């Protein structure tokens, strides 16, 4: 289930021919030009539901490309699978004056498979980009696509990317009076216009005009939260031969359980025997579940395979048992079956995954297609435990930053239920380092450094642990910005309990760490953990500042420096305390012991956009402090 929502940017032509708009580029309103590489001149997207298994989509769009950067915005991409029928593809290219220069049809399109990362994926795309080298130019096109399912309707997002302005876009949904829909509108200025057409069908129409091009703004909230969009969900629907209806998450969850999940957890007797055997001496159900989870991890691995009913159905637990692989659906279903063998109940949970943003399912709008991943929830008494079944290495109960702190749909015996996954607060996402180094007269650094990683940082050395020693040394040299790092000993320990942690200890030396010149020593005070990221400034920022999750870094480094020296320049002493983060860094030289302490903390949350420049300045101050160069001069 790893894919963008359903499939199709389709629609239907129901309007009578209108007077052709002029695509002269000079007619684009001037205020739409800043930051725009292309401008959608006119877009009409219509979805007409003729029957539960017959939805016709029509897309009609004209887009003016202002310069080379906008070329890809004009690419026509029609997603489809075997059951979709594409018709009436045609288009025209106009020059900057709106004069027609070329016509094209479906024969120009290339048809490609889009699931190259999967063992199998039925999704395909027909695509074409008219080759034009004189800017600006306009591509106007239309097509029709018929879908046999009405469970998913593609959302209307008129301004779908950075650098695209929209002069006009309309979205119309047409259905029979008996076809009830739920609507989720986001950031719309104008209300929906409803009515009846001449055939007695209900019509819903939305329109936007003059949307300016979006710019990239670092630390923005999830795009869909601030973009203009309309999503539609059916009440009654048909899906690959299945029928159903729902008005809320509870109903939808029940339908998934009954129609897609039923009777898929049978296991061979031998396997049931085996899991009973390995857990027979464990009484605590949570420890039992942990044992079974670890067994599942040691036995299986993740492969993306989009087969089964419309990609929503897991393949059989017995298949996973035999094949030892599965996608997220199959692996969770399999783990549930194993748990059931020792009488532990668990929930199959549908979630939108992603590290950059924690996206929750919309509590007030139930629909399929909001999610892309499956995780497991085990509801122990007073202790609900979560697990991702696609990793062979993470501990039981650990979700990490891929599915933390968000609302998910759990399939319970009582139907679908929205639950929230655990949050990892700043104080618990810890990278804590302690180092003791000696800098000798030649400027060589030597000593040892120990780092503890917890919370979302726990996984930081997982990739490295998959390698043998020589490869691990190479990777550590890339992890740390210490030139000439010569590792003499490396040890990494992981505690895979319910509060997991990773501890790394490195003994090392690095020649030329300090430069000796003119009777002075120069070296960087912060050896291991220099922040170099400073978000770029944004004039007239539109979005609030989003820090998805917090983190805490603590560094304490003690240097023994050559005797008889003092600090030449002002000592580092920084103390920043902001609502979104804290930073302290200071140093002290006592005799030949130089102590450096640094604490950096980011606090997850959404902050008013007026704070953005503060965030930039904060990171810049941190980066500056981390660049602090020690100058030691002879007493």
């Amino acid at each position, binding site marked *: 289930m790893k894919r963008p929502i359903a499939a199709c940017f389709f629609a239907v032509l129901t309007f009578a021919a209108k007077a052709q708009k002029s695509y002269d580029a000079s007619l684009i309103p001037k205020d739409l030009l800043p*930051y*725009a590489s292309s401008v959608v001149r006119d877009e009409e997207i219509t979805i007409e539901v003729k029957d539960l298994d017959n939805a016709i989509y029509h897309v009609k769009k004209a887009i003016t490309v*202002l*310069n*080379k*950067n906008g070329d890809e915005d004009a690419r026509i991409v029609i997603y489809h699978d075997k059951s979709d029928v594409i018709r009436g593809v045609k288009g025209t290219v106009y020059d900057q004056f709106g004069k027609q220069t070329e016509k094209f049809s479906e024969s120009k399109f290339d*048809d*490609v*498979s889009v699931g*190259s990362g999967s*063992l*199998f994926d039925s999704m395909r795309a027909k695509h074409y980009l008219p*080759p*034009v*080298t*004189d800017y600006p130019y306009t591509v106007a096109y239309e097509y029709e696509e018929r879908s046999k399912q009405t469970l998913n309707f593609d959302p209307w997002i008129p301004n779908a990317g950075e*650098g695209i302005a929209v002069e006009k876009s309309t979205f119309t949904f047409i259905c029979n009076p008996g076809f009830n829909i739920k609507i989720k509108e986001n950031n719309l200025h104008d209300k929906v216009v409803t009515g009846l057409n001449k055939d007695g069908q209900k019509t819903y129409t939305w329109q936007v005009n003059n949307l300016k091009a979006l710019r990239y703004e670092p630390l923005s909230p999830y795009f869909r939260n601030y973009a203009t969009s309309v999503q539609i969900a059916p009440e009654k629907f048909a899906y690959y031969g299945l029928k159903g209806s729902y008005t809320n998450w509870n109903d939808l969850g029940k339908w998934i359980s009954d129609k897609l999940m039923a009777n898929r957890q049978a296991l061979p007797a031998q396997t049931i025997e085996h899991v009973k055997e390995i857990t027979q001496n464990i009484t605590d159900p949570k420890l039992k579940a942990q044992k079974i989870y670890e067994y599942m991890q*040691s*036995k299986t*691995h993740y*492969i993306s*395979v989009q087969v089964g009913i419309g990609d929503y159905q897991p393949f059989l637990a017995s298949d996973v048992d*035999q*094949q*030892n*692989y599965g996608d997220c659906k199959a692996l969770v279903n399999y783990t549930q079956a194993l748990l059931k063998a020792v009488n532990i109940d668990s929930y199959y949970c549908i979630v939108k995954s992603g590290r950059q943003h924690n996206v929750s399912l919309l509590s007030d709008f139930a629909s399929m297609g909001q999610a892309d991943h499956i995780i497991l929830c085990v509801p122990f008494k007073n202790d609900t435990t979560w697990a991702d079944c696609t990793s*062979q290495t993470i501990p039981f109960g650990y979700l990490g930053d891929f599915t933390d702190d968000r609302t998910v749909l759990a399939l319970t015996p009582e139907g679908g239920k929205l639950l929230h996954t655990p949050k990892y607060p700043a104080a618990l996402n810890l990278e804590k380092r302690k180092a003791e180094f000696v800098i000798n007269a030649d400027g060589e650094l030597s000593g040892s450094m120990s780092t503890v990683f917890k919370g979302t940082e726990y996984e930081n050395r997982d990739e490295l642990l*998959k*390698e*043998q*020693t*020589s490869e691990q040394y*190479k990777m550590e*040299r890339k992890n740390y*910005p210490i*030139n*000439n*790092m010569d590792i003499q000993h490396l040890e990494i320990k992981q505690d895979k309990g319910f509060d997991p942690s990773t501890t790394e200890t490195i003994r090392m030396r690095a020649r*030329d760490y*300090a*430069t000796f*010149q*003119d009777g*002075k020593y*120069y*070296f*960087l005070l912060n050896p291991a953990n220099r922040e170099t990221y*400073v978000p*770029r*400034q*944004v*004039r007239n920022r539109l979005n609030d500042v989003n820090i998805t999750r917090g983190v805490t870094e603590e560094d304490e480094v003690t240097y023994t420096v050559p005797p008889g020296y003092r600090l*030449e*320049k*002002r000592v580092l002493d920084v103390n920043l305390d902001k609502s979104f983060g804290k930073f302290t860094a200071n140093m002290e030289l006592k005799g030949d012991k130089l102590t450096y302490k640094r604490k950096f903390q980011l606090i997850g949350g959404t902050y008013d956009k007026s704070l953005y420049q503060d965030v*930039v*300045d904060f990171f*810049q101050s941190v980066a500056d402090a981390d660049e602090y*160069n020690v*100058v030691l001069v002879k007493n």
Partner: protein
Amino acid sequence: MKRPLLTFSFVLIAVIFSQAQDFRFGQITTQEMNMKNYKNDTSAHAVVLNEFGKSTINIGSDDNIKQIYEYHVKIKIFDPKAFDKGTVKVLLYSNDKNEAYEDISDIKAITYYKDDNGFTQKAELENKKIYPVKENKYWASAKFALPGLRPGCIIEYKYKIESFRWDKIRTWEFQDDIPKIYSELEVHIPAFFTFNASIKGYLKLTKNKAEVESKCFETHGASCDCSLINYGMADIPAFKEDDYMTAPKNFASAINFELVEWQSPYDGLKHKQTKEWRDIDYSLKTDYSFGGQLKRKSLFKDKIAPMIAGKTDELAKAKAIYQGWQKWFKWDNFIGIYSDNISRAWDSHSGDVASINLSLSAALAAAGLNSEVVLLSLRDNGAINTLYPVVSDFDYVVAKVNIGDQAYLLDATDPLLPFGVLPFKCLNDKGRVFSLDKPSYFMDMSLPQREKSAYILDVTLTDDGKLKGTLTNYSTGYEAYKRRVEIKKYNSTDEYVESLNNRLPKWKITNAKIDNIDSLDMPVAEHYSVEIKVSDKPEDASKLTFSPYYIGRRSTNPLKLDERSFPIDMGMASEDRYTLIVHLPSNYMVETPPQPISLAMPNNGGKYLSSYQPGDNSFSFVYLTQFNKSVYGAEEYPSVKEFFNKIIQSQKAEMVLKKK
């Protein structure tokens, strides 16, 4: 860059009856099952126990000549990191003429593993779990995943491909990202066909045996003997990629085949494929998709007339046509050296590399200029075989125009390339210069292209702790191209400057002027008025310590490893020069100036210099880095690494300003 390259001629050694050399499918040993690691490389996540391939030219099921390729491999998997070896994707080519892809059959796959009780079990791949996918118009694939993987298991699979490409024997890759205990390729080539074989990489064959099979090929009454050759290699180490490296293909051990000539079994006619360069010259010249297109000068006579109207100078004409082509064509992102129809490409404004550059060459000729083309191999395609003539190593073609005694190489696929500058990807090994009326010849593609940047920061230290003044940046040669690409990512120069400003929170750009953005033959000159925040409260201190390496300071070494087995390929020579001029307030003086330094790499490989010049209440400080070569040999790795180390060392030093 030395690369051993061997050729083999198909000498008949003895006529014997041959037997199949493949190892038996479905057989594993206890020793293989119990292996804990691979003794020659204990860091390996998996090892190929045995691998056997067989390419046969024979009559296919449809009575046409085919290449039948059989592949069989057995891999020991030590840990889950190598489970990806159990997901197999076999690519099948189509020539896009009749939608016929190469045909795969006889897929069999087995996993051997120890069950929870320690007994060896096997799991077989079910046919319904083989997934055929039509990827695009050129490629289809068959994908499958081995069942029942677990650490310590052995996987074994085989398949057969019937290919209409009988003239292209598949390249056999001895070396992969995991080590191999043994790998062997067997080829059966009927005497009607003659191929050249060449070995790439530094590893030696451990088996190289040629025999004759009698009467192994028969069609429509014609028959002949075959050469049966076995190439084997034992104990092959894993191939590991490094940073700053060209195509792995250049270094990994493999064997390539090239059709030299063939005789039609149907009419007995001989076809020379590649023998001497003059044969290749002839076949390219007569090939409709190459010489056939280059000849079509007359197509462009009237199209170039307006471009060169009023121009008498040859160089001006060439530039005008080149710029016309850059503007006319949009490259469709396909590469290659053959074009079906340059006229159609012209009409559609769109084409692949060959259509654009062959037509450019034809147009230059139409203008009466001395025009040729250069066939070359892109960097990621690897070096070309220069031991005997082959054309299949080339995957890119550019135009060459000779004016006076000066030659200019032209690639019109990129509208931002200056006249006579090739993209980085083209700077690789050797190119073959081809023209319609002269014999072809090699030219070196490590062109004297350079990237060069010069920054001049001229500022005054003010009482409020700021540096105010100007920053000027000149980008020359290829650097100018890269700069233009960067600037053109924005919709306007203003947006570029705004973005630049946004990325430098301590800098304020108060005024900006950029010259020569569209004059591709000139350096890009960026002029900025800047204010830089140096210190929050400078008046606190009687001394001000600061780093004069205000821009372009290095603090980490890009070369991290102790040693290296492949050349460091930087693509082209480069120079970065930074000049800092600071005017001080009258109450300040320099207490500790920066130390001038001069570093040089051996053999004039490069240098680093800094120099300090005091002035009247001011000083200037220049530091510059030069890399004079595009490629440094593996043996030079320690000196290049140390060169960086020394630069970093010297740039740690700070200068001290003192209040008078």
